[in-house]
């Protein structure tokens, strides 16, 4: 093995069927090619998952991967990308999560973990300073994520960081998530169900070896600049003070606050929800991920016992959760949203998919498409806050109507039939996040094109690039984005803008970077990202090389889906988005479809099937990918 800087060079391989644990090493060329994070996920999924396997069967593979700066002092660069074949989309699945677990894994001596097979009884994986073992978890099965974490922490000598699933993952709820601590969720893709199918309750990691950095002075130049400047940067300050829940007033003002299952863009009760981004009934404190001074993860100090707390504190819901349990269900009560958030985190449910699936059920009731005892008893309808928690319990327990809803909105709709499909707001089976693409069409392209199903974190959003001299254009000039683009357009300039931004974010996903720390959503300028990677690894790396790694990772995700037998036909947004939201007109389907086709061509993919061409795969060095 080449002695690495930044990366450890070691990947942990765990086979749960046989109970064997091994590791493999890679050299500099491998890391410069795949970089880490999303790149490693794509590499291992293509190498290890045979085509068309059952996502909840033993042949699926679960990958946890960090970037080359994880565990260093670099703020926001210790995120973990988790991947597997998704039970929600039946294709490439990916989700990112913050916290300190990625840093601990690096400090324990590994860049990534690849988990194959399935255990016959519940286990957890314990990794302490270079050694790993599987431990019986029969007593932990059934526990909530925070209870399981607390129990595991008692057993490991040095406090570990823990990724765990809750009862929802154990019961294979299709949108079960993986939690890191009580507030960091790898929410999307149903990866918690994959972990549950493998009977893997948790992965606890504890490491004490400092990550080797080639040029410590070069790296600390970047980190000190960040520490000195983030409080002068408007987006960072907004996150520092209000967390993402602080977005509510702005999205309401912009008529892009998803309301009533995405039929409207404004919600009359928004002021109640906006309290979650302010100093509200309870005192609030900011908490953060490894080495990040922004500390955007806010916490409520709940004194009246109305919500389950950990050391007296409850995690504040993120914006996505506030809108999905709030405006999109026409609910204005912040306490219901806070409780739903804590419940989902404890049980291991993705708050976006859970909320959107409940919105789907509410609309089906309204339209008279389903009639069921549970739905009647709980008075499931838009605006009724009292039905949310009981519905979440039924979903987690897979009881009554909950068993149907636990399949997610796409599968529930096809079982209900009678045209219920049009009320299921999903792409490729994954529910829409809380951004209305009618006011920013690039976000709609992201929803359609994301290989892992609808997501809002595929590329920075259009409004940042609306005006000459805007923050987005000032900071993204090094990416070749020099002129304003209308947020509502779908012309060639929009496709190019989306494509470059997506490649940049895929590159950041390979680096395990938090978008809130890096331009155009945050502070760290493009050249400083390159400088930090160079300082950490010692490579004579360039922006070109990093962008190519992003493009490669995006291509591998697409190639995975091509191998699964699908492409362009699933790059579709729900028909409701072609209708007005009351303030913005609907997106033009014709122009949207043309933009998607143009995107394939710009990427060197087949304009009809959307599959990467042989030449493109070869250009990216992916000769081995068929």
């Amino acid at each position, binding site marked *: 093995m080449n002695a690495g800087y930044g990366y450890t060079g070691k990947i942990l391989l765990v086979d749960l069927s046989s109970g064997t644990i091994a590791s493999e090493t890679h050299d500099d060329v491998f890391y410069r090619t795949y970089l880490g994070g999303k790149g490693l996920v794509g590499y291992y999924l293509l190498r290890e998952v045979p085509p068309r396997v059952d996502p909840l069967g033993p042949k699926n593979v679960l990958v946890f991967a960090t970037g080359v700066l994880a565990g260093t002092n670099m703020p926001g660069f210790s995120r973990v990308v988790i991947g597997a074949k998704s039970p929600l989309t039946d294709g490439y699945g990916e989700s990112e999560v913050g916290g300190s677990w990625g840093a601990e894994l690096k400090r324990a001596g590994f860049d990534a973990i690849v988990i194959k097979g399935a255990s016959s009884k519940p286990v957890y994986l314990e990794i302490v300073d270079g050694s790993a073992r599987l431990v019986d978890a029969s007593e932990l099965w059934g526990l909530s994520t925070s209870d399981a974490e607390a129990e595991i922490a008692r057993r490991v000598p040095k406090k570990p960081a823990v990724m765990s699933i809750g009862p929802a993952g154990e019961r294979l709820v299709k949108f079960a998530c993986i939690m890191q601590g009580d507030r960091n969720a790898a929410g999307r893709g149903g990866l918690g169900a994959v972990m549950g199918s493998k009977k893997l309750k948790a992965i606890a990691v504890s490491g004490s070896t400092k990550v080797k950095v080639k040029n410590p002075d070069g790296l600390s130049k970047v980190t000190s600049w960040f520490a000195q400047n983030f409080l*002068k940067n408007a987006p960072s300050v907004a996150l520092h003070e209000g967390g993402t829940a602080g977005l509510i007033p702005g999205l309401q003002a912009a008529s892009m606050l998803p309301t009533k299952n995405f039929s409207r863009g404004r919600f009359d009760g928004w002021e109640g929800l906006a309290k979650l981004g302010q100093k509200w009934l309870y005192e609030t404190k900011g908490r953060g991920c490894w080495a990040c001074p922004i500390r955007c993860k806010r916490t409520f100090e709940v004194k009246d016992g109305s919500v389950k707390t950990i050391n007296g504190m409850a995690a504040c819901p993120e914006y996505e959760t506030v809108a999905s349990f709030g405006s999109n269900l026409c609910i204005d009560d912040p306490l219901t949203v806070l409780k739903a958030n804590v419940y989902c985190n404890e049980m291991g449910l993705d708050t976006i998919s859970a909320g959107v699936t409940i919105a789907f059920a509410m609309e089906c009731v309204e339209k008279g498409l389903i009639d069921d005892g549970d739905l009647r008893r709980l008075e499931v309808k838009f605006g009724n806050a009292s039905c949310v928690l009981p519905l979440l319990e039924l979903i987690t327990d897979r009881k009554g109507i909950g068993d149907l809803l636990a399949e997610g909105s796409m599968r529930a709709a096809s079982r209900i039939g009678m045209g219920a499909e049009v009320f299921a707001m999903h792409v490729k089976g994954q529910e829409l996040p809380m951004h209305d693409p009618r006011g920013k069409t690039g976000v709609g392209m992201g929803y359609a094109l994301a290989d892992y199903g609808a997501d809002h974190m595929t590329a920075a959003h259009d409004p940042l690039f609306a005006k000459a001299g805007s*923050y987005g254009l000032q900071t993204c000039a090094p990416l070749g984005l020099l002129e304003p683009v209308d947020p509502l357009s779908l012309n060639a300039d929009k496709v190019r803008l989306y494509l470059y931004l997506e490649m940049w974010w895929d590159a950041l996903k390979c680096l395990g970077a938090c978008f809130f720390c890096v331009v155009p959503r945050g502070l760290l300028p493009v050249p400083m990202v390159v400088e930090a990677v160079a300082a950490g690894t010692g490579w004579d790396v360039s922006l070109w090389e990093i962008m190519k790694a992003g493009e490669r990772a995006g291509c591998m995700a697409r190639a995975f889906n091509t191998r699964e037998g699908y492409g362009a036909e699933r790059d579709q947004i729900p028909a409701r988005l072609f209708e007005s939201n009351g303030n913005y007109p609907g997106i033009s389907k014709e122009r949207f479809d043309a933009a998607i086709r143009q995107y394939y061509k710009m990427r060197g993919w087949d304009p009809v099937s959307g599959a990467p061409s042989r030449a493109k795969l070869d250009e990216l060095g992916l000769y081995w990918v068929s």
Partner: protein
Amino acid sequence: MNRVFRSLKGEEMKAIVRLMGGLHALEPHGRNEVTVTAEGLTIQRVLERLSLPVNYVYLVLVNGGTAAIEHVLRDGDTVEVYPPICGG
């Protein structure tokens, strides 16, 4: 030019400007809310006086309705300015 408008009774014409979504970080005194004596001035001019980079402003509301940055302020107006609204 620092025009201050007065009513017939001699009172100053006041408007409230709220800096939303972290924009107050760019205001020299870090204020979230500023009362300006500004009737007759455009929002753009008021923001320039507050030394706020106008290009960072994506959306302007006056008394709850969207308005252009060239909107001329009147006594009692409440203005909210927002940066680009993005994901998270």
